[in-house]
């Protein structure tokens, strides 16, 4: 595998002519204090150097932050005159780095250990399972698979608070402890208002589907995490092993309805690469929402395109749905050149993440105070600055039968 990775890393990074056009769109450049090692040009240049070092037999300096800080929004690819995708370079480099033990990130290691042991990045508390109370699951060949993303966000919110409260040193001591004893994460409480909010959105998603006459089964407490962070942190060996386990559970169904862009893309585009007999119909829930049951109000919305809908794989139905419910405006950075919410950096680079989310929030706020998105990570990341709505909550308010 390593040879294939190296070949692809060389192919991708050697095309970089260091023109810097990508720096102008890379959200982590300005927000990291113009750190040239945390920008897309830096990633391409350092990626090529990493390739050369590996070819010669050793990695010299630790360059892991360069690649772990990449948000993988892939907007760099849109402006690169030679077609370099620094997001892909980061993917490849993280996979290589994850095999060099001394350069692993301790937070990433702790999360990987949890996922492998508990099928979740953190151990959930009871309140995270209350959203499906009173929801009628039906034994059928369609599964509503949440991917646990909405449920996970209130925990990461509290993790960040903990990091600030404890200070870096103590926090990392605990992270190291969690790495050895993953069960310790059971002590982490979710943010109560975050849980309430996540449960409300999850209920609204269920309501939108039920109103559209969609039947589905639920895994409830048995629902596993899809493995997104294993993939995003470059733990491909673990990812391959893990998703085989998950596929055994999901494979009992024919149709999988996903509710967030990360899980949707992972199942639809990445799982098939690693599971030879993959045979699931992966659906995004908005595709099953009956547009005829929505009415168009006079409301004005600013819509934030999630990167995972506009980056590598284009998905435009979220835009169609929101445009069915009101007057929609998009910020200057939208569509394939959208500006990331900063969420993917929240666990490893909280300061950068915070700066990016503030920057994006202001871009949106300048258009309309009524900001909507369709991704749990974007929702939580942008909400740090003010009120943001999930598209499911807007759907709930625009059902004709509610009018």
């Amino acid at each position, binding site marked *: 595998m390593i040879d294939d990775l190296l070949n692809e890393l060389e192919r991708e990074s050697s095309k970089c*002519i260091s023109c*810097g056009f990508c720096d102008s769109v890379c959200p982590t450049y300005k927000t990291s204090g*113009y750190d040239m090692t945390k920008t897309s040009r830096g990633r391409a240049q350092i990626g090529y150097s990493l390739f050369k070092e590996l070819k010669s037999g050793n990695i010299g300096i630790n360059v892991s932050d360069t690649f772990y800080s990449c948000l993988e929004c892939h907007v760099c690819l849109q402006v690169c005159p*030679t077609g370099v995708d620094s997001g892909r370079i980061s993917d490849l480099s993280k996979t290589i780095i994850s095999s060099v033990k001394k350069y692993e990130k301790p937070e990433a290691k702790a999360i990987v250990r949890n996922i492998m042991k508990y099928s979740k990045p953190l151990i959930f508390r009871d309140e995270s399972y209350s959203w499906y109370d009173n929801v009628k699951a039906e034994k059928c060949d369609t599964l509503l698979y949440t991917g646990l993303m909405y449920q996970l966000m209130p925990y990461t919110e509290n993790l960040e608070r903990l990091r600030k409260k404890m200070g870096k040193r103590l926090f990392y001591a605990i992270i190291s402890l969690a790495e050895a004893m993953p069960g310790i994460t059971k002590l982490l409480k979710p943010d109560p208002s975050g849980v309430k909010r996540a449960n409300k959105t999850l209920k609204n998603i269920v309501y939108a589907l039920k109103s559209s006459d969609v039947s589905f089964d639920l895994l409830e407490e048995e629902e596993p995490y899809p493995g997104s962070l294993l993939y995003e942190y470059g733990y491909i060996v673990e990812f391959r092993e893990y998703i085989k386990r998950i596929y055994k559970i999901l494979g009992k169904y024919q149709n999988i309805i996903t509710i967030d862009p990360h899980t949707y893309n992972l199942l639809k585009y990445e799982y098939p690469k690693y599971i030879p007999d993959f045979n699931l119909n992966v659906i995004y829930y908005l595709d099953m929402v009956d547009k005829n049951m929505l009415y168009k109000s006079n409301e004005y919305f600013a819509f934030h395109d999630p990167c995972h809908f506009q980056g590598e794989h284009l998905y435009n139905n979220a835009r169609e749905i929101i445009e069915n419910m009101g007057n929609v405006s998009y910020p200057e950075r939208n569509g394939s050149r959208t500006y990331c919410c900063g969420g993917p950096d929240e666990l490893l680079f909280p300061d950068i993440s915070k700066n990016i989310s503030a920057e994006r929030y202001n871009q949106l706020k300048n258009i309309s105070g009524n900001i909507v998105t369709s991704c749990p990570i974007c929702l939580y990341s942008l909400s740090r600055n003010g009120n943001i709505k999930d598209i499911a909550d807007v759907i709930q308010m625009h059902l004709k039968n509610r009018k």
Partner: protein
Amino acid sequence: MDKRILSEFIDAAGDGNVLYDEKNLFPYKRGSIDGMEEMPETVIKIFHEKSISKVMKIAHKYRIPVIARGGGSSPTGAVVPARKGIVLDMRPLNEIKVNIDDGYVEANAGATLEEVNRELKKYGFFFPPDPSSVSISTVGGAINENSGGMRCARYGVVKDWVLKIDVVLPSGDETSFGESIYKNRGGFNFVDLICGSEGTLCIVKKAYLKIMPFPEKITRIAGFFNTIEESANAIFSIRKNGLNPLILEYADYYGIKAANEIKKWNYPEAHGGMVLVDTDYGENYLNKILKVLEENNAFKIYIPQNEEEYNNIFEIRRIAFAAPGILYSGFIDGDIVVPLSKLRDAIEGINQIRMKNNVYIATCGHAGDGNLHPQVGGNPNNASEWENAKKSVREINDLAVRLGGSISGEHGIGKIKEEEFVGQLKYKNQIKTLEFMKSVKKLFDPENILNPDNFALGGNYD
């Protein structure tokens, strides 16, 4: 670098803004395209205007070479710290203040031209010079390189839009050149001297730039041609007929092919290339341009009907600039400029060099002002292929000089075109220029610490 000196720099620029470990220095070892590289000893990030003078006083005291870097997009090695020393990263210094009443924008050296234009757009104004690196090219970099761009055929280059500059001299002393007024005869024109001085004379801290109201409506049109003769004639006719386009651009067959490959498009891979025109003079002028394209046998004409097509056509020209980068691990940037009447001879001459040397050359450029970018591809690790590429570039530059032009229209000389630059001066009997340049350099920078060796100022070319 000596720890004692480092701590002086840290006092001057602030803790965390002085970088000296290998990982952080690495991204500063090269500019764009040229492939030339050298690691600096230290990088100092400039967040405050006052830090520049403090840093320069220390550098001057210890005779440490200094290079000011903006977006780092120079393709001539101008930002490569060939003598190691210090790179000043000016990018964080990027405050912008718009003064509509007096008709200028005040921008720090690290602000990109795109950021300047974003601010100006709020008031319906813009800064016309637009190098294709506008999104990353900084005010300081564009002034020091006297950058051009697409709109320069109509509006001139950067120097034509600079009213005043606040600078730090190599000694650390501060001064200003020019005034933030539209006319000024107060002394020699030092503003024009600094514009295009490639970072060898002083460090630009802030500039006061002239602005213009943004054109009301821009219409775009592109014609594709079967032969170079037809496209060159179309370009010439547009200029000759006084149609004064906003931009008049050219991309050859190889550039169009590269754009199709990267973007998975199907634009005609025309052997005579594409001529791209923007006009802001309304329907009447658009029809006149259309007529010229038709009269010169454009076999396909696009007048974009939606935003996507409008952007895609432009993107072809933008990608054409870097076309060899897709196929080759290295390429050499060409930047010739010739009299407008010789444009066809230049394009045809480049074509002959391509065939004679069996070398990859993708040519695009600002046809409206006679500035072409013949980009030559090759693999630097393949000695004969690379030598052939270098030889072809030399021949292209000779061609430009023989046609009454110059080896550089807007990218400058830097550290990779010095010999050819001196050759040009000799051919044109202008070698006195180099003598005067050296005298001016000594006047500004007697210790030779600002971007030493750049711009043919360091070597012996007799």
